[in-house]
């Protein structure tokens, strides 16, 4: 096997300095055994494994052994392979623990649905010889949207008047993308800040990771809508606000004293969603959208359509400020 890999590397990457040559895998079932210098063969395509992808959360680095950074030997492109991994894990949203499933076939289906739609990550699937669905994904060169927003080096007022209108306009586009999925009876499944990326070259907002599946019946798109609302709260505030972060920001006590339980998120009880109380120049039309997520609200958005109507109205108003 090693000599076969060596031949492949010499054929497709004659200038490669690689000195270690692994095995060729046509069956990816035991994905923990596939590592650097191995080659995954799918149909007639060959993918040289460079490393396992990692997730960085809460200061910890967590290797994702089923997600491989690879070089597609036939084209020389660096890509990501997501191997079939039928994981079930608890997802925590506020006080709730929701049973979440990782579904290769959901991601496969959505990749087909959004092919050519650059509001989403792009890729395709192929089965290995054991029938495992492997998703071949293009890498988005860019940064998470929240990191981009956090790094804008201006005070909030300047951010709100000079940067936010364009950000809101693009975010509306990202919401329309999720609405497109819903119209096709598909859920994104994990709408959160680190799954919306800003492509460096184009500035486009693009969604990633569609393999989360849940059992939701009466409100099948509720989690996606909650995710979109939470991102909007972050974008409006240029941060998430808890009492602790507000104190760290040096927020005046005259403002802090006005906060009551109705100003906090209905789901994440310590997060302020009434951002207008922090920054009084935020127009009502925008703040009212955020208040749909508050514990004082009795009316919640049932569809992204409803949110889009309000966001578009608000954008018009903000543009005219």
């Amino acid at each position, binding site marked *: 096997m090693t000599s076969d890999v060596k031949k492949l590397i010499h054929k497709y990457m004659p200038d490669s300095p690689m000195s270690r040559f692994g095995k060729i895998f046509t069956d990816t079932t035991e994905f923990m055994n596939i590592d650097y210098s191995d080659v995954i063969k799918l149909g007639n395509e060959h993918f040289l494994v460079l490393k396992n992808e990692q997730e960085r959360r809460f200061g910890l680095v967590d290797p994702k052994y089923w997600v491989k950074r690879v070089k597609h030997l036939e084209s020389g492109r660096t890509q990501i392979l997501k191997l079939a991994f039928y994981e079930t894990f608890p997802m925590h949203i506020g006080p709730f623990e929701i049973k979440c499933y990782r579904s290769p076939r959901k991601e496969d289906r959505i990749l087909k649905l959004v092919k050519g739609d650059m509001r989403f990550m792009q890729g395709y699937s192929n089965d290995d010889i054991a029938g495992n669905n492997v998703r071949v994904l293009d890498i988005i060169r860019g940064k998470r949207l929240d990191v981009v927003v956090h790094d804008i080096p201006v005070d909030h007022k300047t951010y709100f008047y000079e940067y936010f209108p364009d950000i809101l306009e693009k975010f509306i586009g990202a919401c329309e993308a999720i609405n497109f999925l819903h119209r096709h009876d598909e859920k994104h499944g994990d709408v959160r800040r680190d799954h919306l990326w800003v492509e460096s070259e184009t500035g486009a907002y693009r969604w990633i990771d569609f393999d989360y599946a849940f059992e939701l019946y009466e409100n*099948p798109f509720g989690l996606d809508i909650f995710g979109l609302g939470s991102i909007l709260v972050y974008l409006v505030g240029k941060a998430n606000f808890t009492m602790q972060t507000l104190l760290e920001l040096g927020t005046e006590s005259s403002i802090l004293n006005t906060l009551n339980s109705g100003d906090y998120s209905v789901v994440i009880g310590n997060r302020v969603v009434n951002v207008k109380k922090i920054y009084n120049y935020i127009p009502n039309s925008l703040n009212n959208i955020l208040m749909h997520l508050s514990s004082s609200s009795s009316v919640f958005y049932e569809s992204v359509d409803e949110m889009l109507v309000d966001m578009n109205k608000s954008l018009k108003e903000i543009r005219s400020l």
Partner: protein
Amino acid sequence: MTLNKILVAFDGSENSFNAVEYVGNIMKNYPISLILILYVERLPDKDLYRDDETWVSQCKKNEIEMTEKLSLAKQTLIKQGVSADVVTYQYFASCKSPFHDTDICTTGRSIGMDILRIREEGNYDTVVIGRRGVTKAEEFLFGSVSTKVVQSAADCTVWVVN
């Protein structure tokens, strides 16, 4: 108030059996033309299964289990003294069901709206539904069939049984 035709929304849970019993207690001595115990199918999400075969097998298992519960609910009413002639049940299948090929089916978008659609089409005077008592946050994230029915019902009476 007319009590001619009653639709009892049923999902096999303890709450929905409570709703059935509540109806039985009231209706055992009351002249009525029909009590429909309605189950709107909730197919298991296909994405939670490795292949269609496993999913179909789970669908079958669920349907058998639910049909048994529907039958039990009907017997509960009869035992309480409601005439067997006026009690019936319906398994309202999903449009995506692997076993049913019907023109009228549930899309799975909203069970509450399906219940109200059948209520309207069948001219039921009263809808009866059990409630779990969800919090506002749960309602936001996961929805609530009883809340949906209460909020959207028109031209009928709704009994919510806690």
